[in-house]
């Protein structure tokens, strides 16, 4: 394989992996800390993307902002949405068994999809990256690489670093990590569980929505984008080990590379490769790579 | 004491860097109760798990009636005549006492050509269930739901279930845990009645009970055996007193 093409594919793999990490980290936190299987997590990704599309004209008009402002507004709104959603809906799921959580969040997916259909319609939309990010850098005489994809990777790395710092250096992070390894214990230690859960959930939603918003120029905005990403995120959480951010990162990068290079070398079976990877890993480590608690 | 029918020889078990069991040897003979005592973290539960087959030993060998059973899985060992009870009550809470015992008894009658026969009509399982409920004094409660029993009765049911398949060896992990004085007496009577027909390993913290009922005592500290012998010699053993007994048992 041509080294430049190899480099391009590596960059693609890293970008895809980082994006997946953003989504999966929210999911693993939510499941690890609150013990909730949330099938609707993919819907938040979709909400982020559709918001980026739908709000762009409004943001431009009222705030005079461009792409970054739109994304910022998206994050704000979805964090709020996550906070409210936890309060109104998800907090009732804690006492339910996994089965009921699966079903209620399955119903939630349907509701989100349909609301999206009613509010924004079912069309596929492209989003143009902002002008200052739409160039390409040249990697060789003939090969170039879109700057925007590098931007995605940069944002993901930034957010991942911020997440790491919050988790390891702040009190909130300490509570979160304690909760991920032993849920019953932190409540007996007097931590305000309700508020912690709400914050964690809001963070998870915001991460997924951010991923959707910044990925939109590359993937386009289409119905069903949430479902596709949901399954892959679950696979990553399972491979990485539930509750482990480190595991989610490693798993996301693995999946990113397997999916990207799989597409290049075995396009016919590319879709299956990720699941084969999961099956292989679970064969040797039935509880994921970095199982917690 | 008769020859041992169940032997663990130099069994060790590591968990990563931690050596939970260090060359422990245990012999069980029919007609005797062998107690294993020790501080918390001494490795007693690990020992039972290794002997019952839930964990495999890192090194060492386990034999029963001449067969090397070291690599045998837990179900296989159970079918070969090793019964065990758990420290945390492990019963079928939704089923009645009789159903609990019948289900445990059915393990001896698993030929797949019988699979479709109605469970409630398995004569031999029903008889075994009746027998063990009688033996443990729970017959009157046979139709009660197991989850609604008092703690002491649940522990008795545990023992009953481990008896259904007529095991030769009984591995009992803290059967007296959480019991009041009256329940403890009843349990000790039950254990005494079981002595003749079984080879019993008893993990316990209740020192009075241990010295009252056991024929042989092994003392473990930090995964190793520090003393082994009959109750009198253990009581007088300096090392044991220093490490574990503190003030002398009455």
């Amino acid at each position: 394989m041509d080294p430049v093409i190899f480099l391009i594919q590596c960059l693609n793999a890293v970008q895809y992996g980082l994006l997946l990490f953003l989504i999966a980290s929210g999911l693993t936190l939510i499941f690890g800390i609150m013990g909730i299987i949330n099938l609707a997590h993919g819907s938040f990704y979709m909400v982020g993307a559709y918001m980026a599309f739908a709000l762009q004209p409004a943001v431009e008009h009222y705030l005079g902002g461009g792409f970054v402002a739109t994304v910022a507004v998206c994050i704000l709104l979805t964090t709020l949405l996550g906070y409210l959603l936890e309060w109104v809906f998800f907090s009732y799921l804690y006492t339910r068994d996994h089965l009921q959580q699966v079903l209620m969040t399955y119903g939630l997916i349907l509701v989100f999809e349909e609301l999206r259909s009613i509010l924004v319609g079912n069309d596929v939309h492209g989003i143009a990256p902002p002008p200052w990010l739409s160039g390409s850098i040249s990697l060789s005489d003939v090969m170039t690489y879109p700057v925007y994809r590098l931007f995605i990777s940069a944002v993901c790395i930034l957010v991942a670093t911020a997440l790491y710092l919050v988790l390891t250096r702040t009190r909130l992070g300490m509570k979160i990590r304690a909760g991920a390894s032993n849920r019953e214990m932190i409540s007996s230690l007097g931590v305000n569980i309700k508020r912690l859960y709400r914050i964690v959930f809001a963070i998870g939603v915001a991460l997924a929505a951010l991923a959707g918003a910044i990925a939109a120029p590359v993937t386009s905005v289409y119905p069903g984008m949430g479902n596709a990403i949901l399954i892959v995120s679950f696979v990553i959480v399972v491979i990485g080990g539930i509750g482990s951010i480190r595991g989610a990162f490693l798993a996301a990068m693995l999946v990113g590379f397997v999916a990207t290079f799989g597409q290049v070398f075995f396009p016919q079976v590319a879709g299956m490769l990720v699941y084969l990877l999961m099956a292989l890993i679970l064969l040797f480590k039935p509880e994921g790579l970095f199982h917690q608690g | 004491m008769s020859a041992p029918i169940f032997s663990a020889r130099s069994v060790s078990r590591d968990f990563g860097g931690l050596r939970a069991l260090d060359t422990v040897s245990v012999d069980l003979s029919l007609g005797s109760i062998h107690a294993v005592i020790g501080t918390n973290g001494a490795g007693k539960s690990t020992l039972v798990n290794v002997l019952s087959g839930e964990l495999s030993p890192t090194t060492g060998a386990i034999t029963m009636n001449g067969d090397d059973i070291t690599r045998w899985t837990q179900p296989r060992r159970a079918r070969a005549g090793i019964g065990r009870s758990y420290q945390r009550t492990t019963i079928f809470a939704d089923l009645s006492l009789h159903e609990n015992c019948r289900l445990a008894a059915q393990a001896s009658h698993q030929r797949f050509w019988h699979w479709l026969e109605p469970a409630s009509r398995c004569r031999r399982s029903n008889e075994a269930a009746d027998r063990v409920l009688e033996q443990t004094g729970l017959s009157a409660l046979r139709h009660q739901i197991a989850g609604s029993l008092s703690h002491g009765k649940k522990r008795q049911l545990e023992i009953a279930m481990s008896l259904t398949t007529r095991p030769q060896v009984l591995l009992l992990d803290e059967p007296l845990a959480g019991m009041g004085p009256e329940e403890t007496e009843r349990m000790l009577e039950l254990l005494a009645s079981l002595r003749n027909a079984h080879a019993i390993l008893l993990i316990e913290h209740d020192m009075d009970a241990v010295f009252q009922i056991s024929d042989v005592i092994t003392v473990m500290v930090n995964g190793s055996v520090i003393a082994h012998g009959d109750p009198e010699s253990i009581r007088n053993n300096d090392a044991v007193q220093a490490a574990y007994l503190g003030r002398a048992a009455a």
Partner: protein
Amino acid sequence: MTPRKRTAFVLSVLCLLAALPWVANDYYTGLIVKIMIYGLFAMSLQLLVGGAGLVSLGHAAFFGAGAYATALLSPESASANFFWLIPCVLLASTAYAAVTGALSLRTRGIYFIMITLAFAQMAYYVFHDTQFGGGSDGIYLYFRPEWRVGDWTLLNIDDPHTFYLFVLATVASIWAFLSVLSRSRFGAALTGIRINEQRMRAAGYSTFAYKFVAYLLAAALAGIAGMLFAAKDGFVNPELLNWEQSGLVLLMVILGGSGNLWGALLGAFGLIALEELFQSEAIFGGMANHWHLTFGLTIIALVAVMPKGLAGFMNKLGHRAQPGPASRSSLPHTPQP
């Protein structure tokens, strides 16, 4: 209900169902057939979920395997013969179940849910991305299979009424089999494994073997449901294996009440009826196009209000109506001494 009353009830339901094609129009007959097929699909999953306590989110893979086996193995210009088709369908679904089960059953809880989902997605991609089964367009079944010995046709089910009765007979007999199974030694062992697998192992059961057999059996029955589905509409596409299908059938099992067999049938009936209801323009007007919304909200409400599903709810109603010797599940707890 006493066993005799129950048998009488079941038989009368069967008779009513058998008479249905002659009184209802074609649309409703077809709908009942669909309900029966999904009922079978749900019952096969109930064996796993309610029987062995294994929650699978990938059961659609076996349904699809059966459907595709039927479509792919049927000749284009003639009817396939059930005598060899059925074993092939069973082989297809159990073969995939054997491979995936050997791996999946080593996990439990949420990991089991996810790995079954992943294996179903894998199967979905095989049919969706490759040309093996006609790709994302799907394939057609041109002639319904029939029962044939040599040149002599024993039973041809092209006629919709005959097909209806054939499906009814199949589903009823499998229901009877699963009923016997639930009361059998095998069923008792599965129940034990569901309640407390550790105790079962300590008693001497090789629990993996039991779970594996249950998994294979559930897959086989789902395959039969898939075969009937292919025969019904004559069209099979990869969407039969997607996870929304797996979720739907799981919904049926749980909404119906995963504790027993007729809960699965009730769930299939309830969910399909709900789908029909919410898609009905007569009642919902414009919202009928967005029936996923009403459907989703209803699912959420139902799960919230009836955690034990319809069957559990109806059991409760039944007990309130008949004071008397209470059934096992409502035995009052004796006060602790």
